[in-house]
Protein backbone atom coordinates (compact mmCIF):
# COMPACT_ATOMS: atom_id res chain seq x y z
CA UNK A 1 0.00 0.00 0.00
CA UNK A 2 1.23 3.45 -0.85
CA UNK A 3 2.35 5.40 2.24
CA UNK A 4 0.10 8.28 3.26
CA UNK A 5 2.91 9.92 5.18
CA UNK A 6 3.85 12.37 2.40
CA UNK A 7 0.25 13.62 2.29
CA UNK A 8 0.23 14.12 6.05
CA UNK A 9 3.57 15.93 5.85
CA UNK A 10 2.25 18.20 3.15
CA UNK A 11 -0.87 19.04 5.15
CA UNK A 12 1.24 19.72 8.22
CA UNK A 13 3.58 21.97 6.25
CA UNK A 14 0.62 24.04 5.11
CA UNK A 15 -0.59 24.36 8.69
CA UNK A 16 2.87 25.26 10.01
CA UNK A 17 3.38 27.86 7.30
CA UNK A 18 0.10 29.53 8.24
CA UNK A 19 0.15 29.27 12.06
CA UNK A 20 3.71 28.44 13.01
CA UNK A 21 5.13 25.28 14.53
CA UNK A 22 4.29 26.00 18.18
CA UNK A 23 0.67 26.88 17.60
CA UNK A 24 0.10 23.82 15.44
CA UNK A 25 1.85 21.58 17.99
CA UNK A 26 -0.27 23.04 20.80
CA UNK A 27 -3.44 22.55 18.79
CA UNK A 28 -2.48 18.95 18.03
CA UNK A 29 -1.80 18.29 21.71
CA UNK A 30 -5.19 19.80 22.55
CA UNK A 31 -6.92 17.68 19.93
CA UNK A 32 -5.20 14.56 21.19
CA UNK A 33 -6.19 15.14 24.82
CA UNK A 34 -9.79 16.10 24.02
CA UNK A 35 -10.31 13.08 21.75
CA UNK A 36 -8.68 10.73 24.25
CA UNK A 37 -6.10 9.69 21.75
CA UNK A 38 -4.26 6.49 22.60
CA UNK A 39 -0.60 6.68 23.64
CA UNK A 40 0.39 4.80 20.49
CA UNK A 41 -1.37 7.29 18.24
CA UNK A 42 0.19 10.15 20.23
CA UNK A 43 3.55 8.54 19.63
CA UNK A 44 2.65 8.47 15.95
CA UNK A 45 1.92 12.20 16.03
CA UNK A 46 5.22 12.80 17.72
CA UNK A 47 6.99 10.87 14.95
CA UNK A 48 5.25 13.06 12.39
CA UNK A 49 6.35 16.16 14.23
CA UNK A 50 9.94 15.00 14.11
CA UNK A 51 9.40 14.18 10.44
CA UNK A 52 8.21 17.77 9.99
CA UNK A 53 11.31 19.00 11.80
CA UNK A 54 13.47 17.01 9.39
CA UNK A 55 11.91 18.96 6.54
CA UNK A 56 13.32 22.13 8.07
CA UNK A 57 16.82 20.73 8.48
CA UNK A 58 19.59 22.95 7.20
CA UNK A 59 21.52 21.84 4.14
CA UNK A 60 24.50 20.99 6.35
CA UNK A 61 22.33 18.87 8.66
CA UNK A 62 20.88 17.03 5.70
CA UNK A 63 24.36 16.07 4.54
CA UNK A 64 25.40 15.10 8.07
CA UNK A 65 22.42 12.78 8.37
CA UNK A 66 22.66 11.32 4.88
CA UNK A 67 24.40 8.01 4.31
CA UNK A 68 27.43 9.49 2.63
CA UNK A 69 31.06 9.04 3.27
CA UNK A 70 34.58 9.98 2.30
CA UNK A 71 35.47 12.66 -0.18
CA UNK A 72 31.95 12.96 -1.53
CA UNK A 73 30.59 13.77 1.92
CA UNK A 74 33.37 16.31 2.56
CA UNK A 75 32.74 18.10 -0.71
CA UNK A 76 28.98 18.06 -0.26
CA UNK A 77 29.44 19.45 3.24
CA UNK A 78 31.46 22.35 1.86
CA UNK A 79 28.73 23.05 -0.66
CA UNK A 80 25.99 22.69 1.95
CA UNK A 81 27.73 25.15 4.27
CA UNK A 82 27.97 27.63 1.42
CA UNK A 83 24.33 26.93 0.59
CA UNK A 84 23.28 27.68 4.17
CA UNK A 85 25.28 30.93 4.07
CA UNK A 86 23.64 31.74 0.71
CA UNK A 87 27.02 31.75 -1.02
CA UNK A 88 26.04 28.88 -3.30
CA UNK A 89 22.81 29.25 -5.29
CA UNK A 90 21.60 32.15 -3.15
CA UNK A 91 18.01 32.19 -4.40
CA UNK A 92 15.46 29.56 -5.37
CA UNK A 93 15.67 30.93 -8.94
CA UNK A 94 19.40 30.08 -8.92
CA UNK A 95 18.63 26.53 -7.77
CA UNK A 96 16.05 26.15 -10.53
CA UNK A 97 18.50 27.46 -13.16
CA UNK A 98 21.27 25.22 -11.82
CA UNK A 99 19.05 22.14 -12.15
CA UNK A 100 18.05 23.14 -15.68
CA UNK A 101 21.75 23.44 -16.55
CA UNK A 102 22.22 19.95 -15.12
CA UNK A 103 19.72 18.67 -17.69
CA UNK A 104 16.72 18.46 -15.34
CA UNK A 105 13.26 20.00 -15.54
CA UNK A 106 12.41 21.26 -12.04
CA UNK A 107 8.76 22.15 -11.53
CA UNK A 108 6.92 23.81 -8.67
CA UNK A 109 10.04 24.67 -6.71
CA UNK A 110 9.26 27.67 -4.52
CA UNK A 111 11.10 27.31 -1.25
CA UNK A 112 14.90 27.44 -1.16
CA UNK A 113 15.31 25.35 1.99
CA UNK A 114 13.04 22.67 0.54
CA UNK A 115 14.93 22.87 -2.77
CA UNK A 116 18.15 21.52 -1.28
CA UNK A 117 16.63 18.06 -0.96
CA UNK A 118 16.02 18.00 -4.73
CA UNK A 119 19.37 19.61 -5.42
CA UNK A 120 21.15 17.01 -3.32
CA UNK A 121 19.84 14.19 -5.50
CA UNK A 122 21.46 15.84 -8.51
CA UNK A 123 24.69 16.70 -6.73
CA UNK A 124 25.10 13.11 -5.54
CA UNK A 125 25.04 11.89 -9.13
CA UNK A 126 27.91 14.16 -10.16
CA UNK A 127 31.42 12.84 -10.72
CA UNK A 128 33.86 13.77 -7.94
CA UNK A 129 35.86 16.26 -10.01
CA UNK A 130 32.78 18.19 -11.09
CA UNK A 131 31.49 18.30 -7.53
CA UNK A 132 34.84 19.58 -6.31
CA UNK A 133 34.80 22.22 -9.01
CA UNK A 134 31.50 23.58 -7.66
CA UNK A 135 32.87 23.58 -4.13
CA UNK A 136 36.06 25.31 -5.26
CA UNK A 137 34.64 27.94 -7.59
CA UNK A 138 32.20 30.81 -7.57
CA UNK A 139 30.46 29.54 -10.70
CA UNK A 140 27.07 29.40 -8.99
CA UNK A 141 27.42 32.08 -6.36
CA UNK A 142 24.60 34.23 -7.70
CA UNK A 143 24.51 37.45 -9.71
CA UNK A 144 27.85 39.02 -10.64
CA UNK A 145 29.23 41.56 -8.23
CA UNK A 146 30.85 44.10 -10.44
CA UNK A 147 33.11 45.61 -7.75
CA UNK A 148 35.25 42.49 -7.22
CA UNK A 149 35.24 41.88 -10.99
CA UNK A 150 36.55 45.40 -11.61
CA UNK A 151 39.23 44.84 -8.98
CA UNK A 152 40.26 41.58 -10.67
CA UNK A 153 40.47 43.31 -14.05
CA UNK A 154 42.50 46.13 -12.51
CA UNK A 155 44.82 43.61 -10.82
CA UNK A 156 45.31 41.77 -14.11
CA UNK A 157 45.98 45.14 -15.74
CA UNK A 158 48.60 45.92 -13.12
CA UNK A 159 50.51 42.89 -14.30
CA UNK A 160 50.61 44.14 -17.90
CA UNK A 161 52.86 47.22 -17.67
CA UNK A 162 55.50 45.17 -15.88
CA UNK A 163 55.28 42.54 -18.64
CA UNK A 164 55.57 45.24 -21.29
CA UNK A 165 58.46 46.79 -19.43
CA UNK A 166 60.11 43.41 -19.24
CA UNK A 167 59.60 42.95 -23.00
CA UNK A 168 61.29 46.23 -23.83
CA UNK A 169 64.27 45.67 -21.52
Amino acid at each position, binding site marked *: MKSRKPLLNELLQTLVKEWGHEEVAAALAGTASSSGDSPSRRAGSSKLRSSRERVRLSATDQIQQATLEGEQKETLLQLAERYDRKQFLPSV*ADVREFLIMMGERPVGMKDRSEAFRILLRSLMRLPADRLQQFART*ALHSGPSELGP*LSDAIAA*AGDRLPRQRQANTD
Partner: protein
Amino acid sequence: MARAGGPVTVCVINLKGGVGKSTISALLARRGYTTRDLDVLAIDLDPQANLSQGLMHNEYKSFLGEQRPSIVEVFNGYIPPTIAASTPTPLPPNATFEIVAQAGTRSLQLIPSRFDFSDNLLGAVRPDPKTLARYLSLNFQHKDLIIIDCAPTESILTTAAYHASGNVLVPVKPEYFATIGFPLLQQSLDNFRNQNRGHHISVAGVVVNNAFYDGGNNGGPEKARAMKEIRAESKKNDWPMYTNEIYHSRGFPKIMRGDYSYPGNAQYFFTFADEFFRSIDL
Protein backbone atom coordinates in the same frame (compact mmCIF):
# COMPACT_ATOMS: atom_id res chain seq x y z
CA MET B 1 26.97 11.92 -29.71
CA ALA B 2 28.83 13.99 -32.29
CA ARG B 3 26.95 15.18 -35.37
CA ALA B 4 27.82 13.35 -38.57
CA GLY B 5 28.93 16.52 -40.35
CA GLY B 6 30.77 17.98 -37.38
CA PRO B 7 29.62 21.00 -35.42
CA VAL B 8 27.56 23.83 -36.86
CA THR B 9 29.63 26.95 -36.32
CA VAL B 10 28.04 30.36 -36.22
CA CYS B 11 29.71 33.71 -35.70
CA VAL B 12 27.56 36.45 -34.25
CA ILE B 13 28.67 39.71 -35.78
CA ASN B 14 27.67 43.23 -36.72
CA LEU B 15 30.31 45.84 -37.39
CA LYS B 16 28.29 48.19 -35.20
CA GLY B 17 28.44 48.03 -31.42
CA GLY B 18 25.63 47.73 -28.89
CA VAL B 19 23.29 45.51 -30.91
CA GLY B 20 23.27 42.62 -28.41
CA LYS B 21 25.86 40.28 -29.92
CA SER B 22 27.17 38.99 -26.59
CA THR B 23 23.75 38.65 -24.98
CA ILE B 24 22.37 36.77 -27.98
CA SER B 25 25.47 34.54 -28.12
CA ALA B 26 25.15 33.69 -24.43
CA LEU B 27 21.43 33.00 -24.63
CA LEU B 28 21.69 30.86 -27.77
CA ALA B 29 24.54 28.87 -26.23
CA ARG B 30 22.52 28.27 -23.05
CA ARG B 31 19.30 27.48 -24.90
CA GLY B 32 21.02 25.14 -27.33
CA TYR B 33 22.45 23.28 -24.37
CA THR B 34 19.38 23.23 -22.10
CA THR B 35 16.45 22.77 -24.44
CA ARG B 36 17.95 21.33 -27.63
CA ASP B 37 20.24 18.98 -25.68
CA LEU B 38 23.21 20.10 -27.75
CA ASP B 39 26.88 19.81 -26.89
CA VAL B 40 27.91 23.47 -27.12
CA LEU B 41 31.11 25.50 -27.26
CA ALA B 42 30.95 29.29 -26.92
CA ILE B 43 33.96 31.34 -27.95
CA ASP B 44 34.53 34.91 -26.88
CA LEU B 45 36.50 36.77 -29.54
CA ASP B 46 35.77 40.19 -28.09
CA PRO B 47 38.43 41.68 -25.79
CA GLN B 48 35.61 43.33 -23.82
CA ALA B 49 34.84 39.77 -22.64
CA ASN B 50 31.15 40.37 -22.07
CA LEU B 51 30.19 36.87 -23.23
CA SER B 52 32.72 35.41 -20.79
CA GLN B 53 31.31 37.44 -17.93
CA GLY B 54 27.75 36.65 -19.00
CA LEU B 55 28.39 32.91 -18.82
CA MET B 56 30.86 32.78 -15.93
CA HIS B 57 29.51 35.54 -13.67
CA ASN B 58 31.52 35.73 -10.43
CA GLU B 59 33.81 32.94 -11.59
CA TYR B 60 35.32 35.26 -14.18
CA LYS B 61 37.19 36.87 -11.28
CA SER B 62 38.91 33.56 -10.41
CA PHE B 63 39.62 32.93 -14.08
CA LEU B 64 41.52 36.22 -14.25
CA GLY B 65 43.23 35.80 -10.89
CA GLU B 66 44.41 32.26 -11.63
CA GLN B 67 45.41 33.17 -15.19
CA ARG B 68 43.58 30.18 -16.62
CA PRO B 69 43.81 29.47 -20.37
CA SER B 70 41.82 31.76 -22.62
CA ILE B 71 41.46 32.61 -26.30
CA VAL B 72 44.84 34.36 -25.99
CA GLU B 73 46.52 31.00 -25.41
CA VAL B 74 44.66 29.46 -28.36
CA PHE B 75 46.16 32.09 -30.66
CA ASN B 76 49.57 31.91 -29.03
CA GLY B 77 49.54 28.11 -29.12
CA TYR B 78 51.03 27.65 -25.68
CA ILE B 79 50.51 28.39 -22.01
CA PRO B 80 53.03 30.94 -20.71
CA PRO B 81 55.24 30.18 -17.70
CA THR B 82 53.50 30.29 -14.33
CA ILE B 83 54.66 30.05 -10.72
CA ALA B 84 54.12 26.27 -10.96
CA ALA B 85 55.85 25.78 -14.33
CA SER B 86 58.70 28.11 -15.20
CA THR B 87 58.70 27.26 -18.88
CA PRO B 88 56.06 27.61 -21.58
CA THR B 89 53.90 24.51 -21.79
CA PRO B 90 51.91 23.26 -24.77
CA LEU B 91 48.21 23.96 -24.82
CA PRO B 92 46.75 20.48 -24.29
CA PRO B 93 44.87 19.26 -27.36
CA ASN B 94 41.95 18.38 -25.12
CA ALA B 95 42.11 21.56 -23.03
CA THR B 96 38.73 21.80 -21.36
CA PHE B 97 38.74 25.56 -20.85
CA GLU B 98 35.74 26.64 -18.80
CA ILE B 99 32.86 24.21 -18.23
CA VAL B 100 29.81 26.35 -17.61
CA ALA B 101 27.46 23.37 -17.37
CA GLN B 102 27.58 19.64 -17.85
CA ALA B 103 24.97 16.91 -18.13
CA GLY B 104 26.23 13.43 -18.90
CA THR B 105 28.50 13.58 -21.92
CA ARG B 106 27.18 16.97 -23.08
CA SER B 107 28.49 20.26 -21.83
CA LEU B 108 28.38 23.98 -22.36
CA GLN B 109 32.01 25.02 -22.61
CA LEU B 110 33.52 28.43 -23.03
CA ILE B 111 36.80 29.65 -24.40
CA PRO B 112 36.87 32.95 -22.53
CA SER B 113 38.44 36.23 -23.52
CA ARG B 114 40.56 38.75 -21.65
CA PHE B 115 40.68 42.49 -22.07
CA ASP B 116 44.35 42.30 -23.10
CA PHE B 117 43.44 39.96 -25.98
CA SER B 118 43.81 42.35 -28.91
CA ASP B 119 46.77 44.05 -27.23
CA ASN B 120 48.44 40.68 -26.86
CA LEU B 121 47.89 39.79 -30.51
CA LEU B 122 48.88 43.16 -31.88
CA GLY B 123 52.10 42.87 -29.93
CA ALA B 124 52.90 39.63 -31.72
CA VAL B 125 54.31 39.15 -35.20
CA ARG B 126 51.26 39.05 -37.50
CA PRO B 127 49.05 36.33 -35.98
CA ASP B 128 47.73 33.63 -38.26
CA PRO B 129 43.96 34.15 -38.69
CA LYS B 130 43.52 30.43 -39.39
CA THR B 131 44.80 29.47 -35.93
CA LEU B 132 41.34 29.29 -34.37
CA ALA B 133 39.83 27.26 -37.24
CA ARG B 134 42.76 24.85 -37.07
CA TYR B 135 42.43 24.48 -33.30
CA LEU B 136 38.67 23.84 -33.49
CA SER B 137 39.03 21.35 -36.32
CA LEU B 138 41.51 19.34 -34.26
CA ASN B 139 39.85 19.52 -30.86
CA PHE B 140 36.15 20.28 -31.00
CA GLN B 141 34.71 18.07 -33.74
CA HIS B 142 32.56 16.33 -31.14
CA LYS B 143 30.52 19.48 -30.47
CA ASP B 144 27.09 20.05 -32.04
CA LEU B 145 27.17 23.82 -31.98
CA ILE B 146 29.97 26.38 -31.79
CA ILE B 147 28.98 30.01 -31.26
CA ILE B 148 31.57 32.73 -31.75
CA ASP B 149 30.92 36.18 -30.33
CA CYS B 150 32.83 38.75 -32.41
CA ALA B 151 34.07 42.23 -31.63
CA PRO B 152 32.28 45.10 -33.41
CA THR B 153 35.40 46.36 -35.16
CA GLU B 154 36.99 44.62 -38.11
CA SER B 155 40.38 43.15 -37.36
CA ILE B 156 42.32 39.95 -37.71
CA LEU B 157 39.90 38.51 -35.15
CA THR B 158 36.99 39.01 -37.58
CA THR B 159 38.90 37.07 -40.23
CA ALA B 160 39.70 34.40 -37.65
CA ALA B 161 35.96 34.10 -36.89
CA TYR B 162 35.14 33.77 -40.61
CA HIS B 163 37.77 31.07 -41.07
CA ALA B 164 36.21 29.11 -38.21
CA SER B 165 32.56 29.57 -39.28
CA GLY B 166 30.10 28.40 -41.88
CA ASN B 167 27.27 30.68 -40.77
CA VAL B 168 26.88 34.30 -39.76
CA LEU B 169 24.16 35.68 -37.51
CA VAL B 170 23.63 39.43 -37.69
CA PRO B 171 21.78 41.10 -34.80
CA VAL B 172 20.50 44.60 -35.43
CA LYS B 173 18.62 47.16 -33.37
CA PRO B 174 15.87 49.08 -35.15
CA GLU B 175 17.12 52.54 -34.25
CA TYR B 176 19.03 55.44 -35.73
CA PHE B 177 22.21 54.22 -37.52
CA ALA B 178 20.72 50.71 -37.45
CA THR B 179 22.28 49.56 -40.71
CA ILE B 180 25.56 51.48 -40.45
CA GLY B 181 27.46 48.21 -40.01
CA PHE B 182 25.75 46.35 -42.89
CA PRO B 183 27.80 47.64 -45.86
CA LEU B 184 31.00 47.15 -43.88
CA LEU B 185 30.02 43.61 -42.99
CA GLN B 186 29.01 42.76 -46.56
CA GLN B 187 32.30 44.17 -47.84
CA SER B 188 34.21 42.27 -45.19
CA LEU B 189 32.44 38.99 -46.13
CA ASP B 190 32.98 39.60 -49.86
CA ASN B 191 36.69 40.20 -49.29
CA PHE B 192 36.93 37.02 -47.26
CA ARG B 193 35.08 34.95 -49.88
CA ASN B 194 37.31 36.30 -52.65
CA GLN B 195 40.43 35.37 -50.75
CA ASN B 196 39.11 31.97 -49.63
CA ARG B 197 37.29 30.51 -52.61
CA GLY B 198 36.90 27.05 -51.12
CA HIS B 199 35.30 28.32 -47.92
CA HIS B 200 31.50 28.42 -47.81
CA ILE B 201 30.19 31.01 -45.41
CA SER B 202 26.65 32.40 -45.53
CA VAL B 203 24.50 34.75 -43.55
CA ALA B 204 22.01 32.57 -41.67
CA GLY B 205 19.90 35.63 -41.02
CA VAL B 206 19.39 39.08 -39.59
CA VAL B 207 17.60 39.23 -36.26
CA VAL B 208 15.90 42.37 -35.02
CA ASN B 209 16.78 42.97 -31.40
CA ASN B 210 13.96 45.29 -30.48
CA ALA B 211 15.25 48.34 -28.68
CA PHE B 212 11.81 49.62 -27.85
CA TYR B 213 9.48 48.95 -24.96
CA ASP B 214 6.40 47.18 -26.28
CA GLY B 215 3.93 48.09 -23.54
CA GLY B 216 1.97 50.49 -25.72
CA ASN B 217 5.04 51.86 -27.48
CA ASN B 218 6.64 49.67 -30.07
CA GLY B 219 8.98 52.30 -31.38
CA GLY B 220 6.57 54.47 -33.32
CA PRO B 221 7.75 56.16 -36.52
CA GLU B 222 11.45 55.88 -35.64
CA LYS B 223 11.29 52.10 -35.42
CA ALA B 224 9.21 51.98 -38.61
CA ARG B 225 11.87 54.03 -40.46
CA ALA B 226 14.69 51.88 -39.12
CA MET B 227 12.83 48.66 -39.99
CA LYS B 228 12.32 49.90 -43.54
CA GLU B 229 16.07 50.51 -43.86
CA ILE B 230 16.93 47.14 -42.32
CA ARG B 231 14.64 45.31 -44.73
CA ALA B 232 15.98 47.22 -47.72
CA GLU B 233 19.63 46.69 -46.78
CA SER B 234 19.11 43.01 -45.98
CA LYS B 235 17.40 42.48 -49.33
CA LYS B 236 20.20 44.32 -51.15
CA ASN B 237 22.76 41.98 -49.57
CA ASP B 238 20.56 38.93 -50.06
CA TRP B 239 20.50 38.28 -46.31
CA PRO B 240 17.38 36.53 -44.96
CA MET B 241 15.59 38.11 -42.01
CA TYR B 242 14.20 36.13 -39.10
CA THR B 243 10.44 36.44 -38.70
CA ASN B 244 10.64 36.56 -34.91
CA GLU B 245 12.10 39.65 -33.28
CA ILE B 246 13.76 39.59 -29.90
CA TYR B 247 11.45 41.50 -27.55
CA HIS B 248 12.75 44.42 -25.56
CA SER B 249 13.21 43.32 -21.94
CA ARG B 250 15.02 44.43 -18.83
CA GLY B 251 15.33 40.70 -18.14
CA PHE B 252 18.26 40.37 -20.56
CA PRO B 253 20.81 42.39 -18.55
CA LYS B 254 19.59 40.57 -15.43
CA ILE B 255 20.22 37.17 -17.00
CA MET B 256 23.65 38.28 -18.24
CA ARG B 257 24.49 39.26 -14.67
CA GLY B 258 23.28 35.86 -13.45
CA ASP B 259 20.01 36.97 -11.88
CA TYR B 260 17.32 34.48 -12.93
CA SER B 261 14.58 35.73 -10.59
CA TYR B 262 12.15 37.33 -13.05
CA PRO B 263 13.03 37.32 -16.73
CA GLY B 264 10.08 39.42 -17.95
CA ASN B 265 9.78 39.42 -21.73
CA ALA B 266 13.23 37.81 -22.00
CA GLN B 267 11.38 34.53 -21.49
CA TYR B 268 10.10 34.91 -25.07
CA PHE B 269 13.63 34.71 -26.47
CA PHE B 270 12.74 31.13 -27.40
CA THR B 271 10.54 32.34 -30.27
CA PHE B 272 13.60 33.63 -32.10
CA ALA B 273 15.93 30.91 -30.78
CA ASP B 274 13.73 28.10 -32.11
CA GLU B 275 13.56 29.76 -35.53
CA PHE B 276 17.33 30.24 -35.48
CA PHE B 277 18.06 26.59 -34.62
CA ARG B 278 15.70 25.45 -37.37
CA SER B 279 17.49 27.75 -39.85
CA ILE B 280 20.81 26.05 -39.16
CA ASP B 281 19.31 22.54 -39.06
CA LEU B 282 19.77 22.00 -35.33
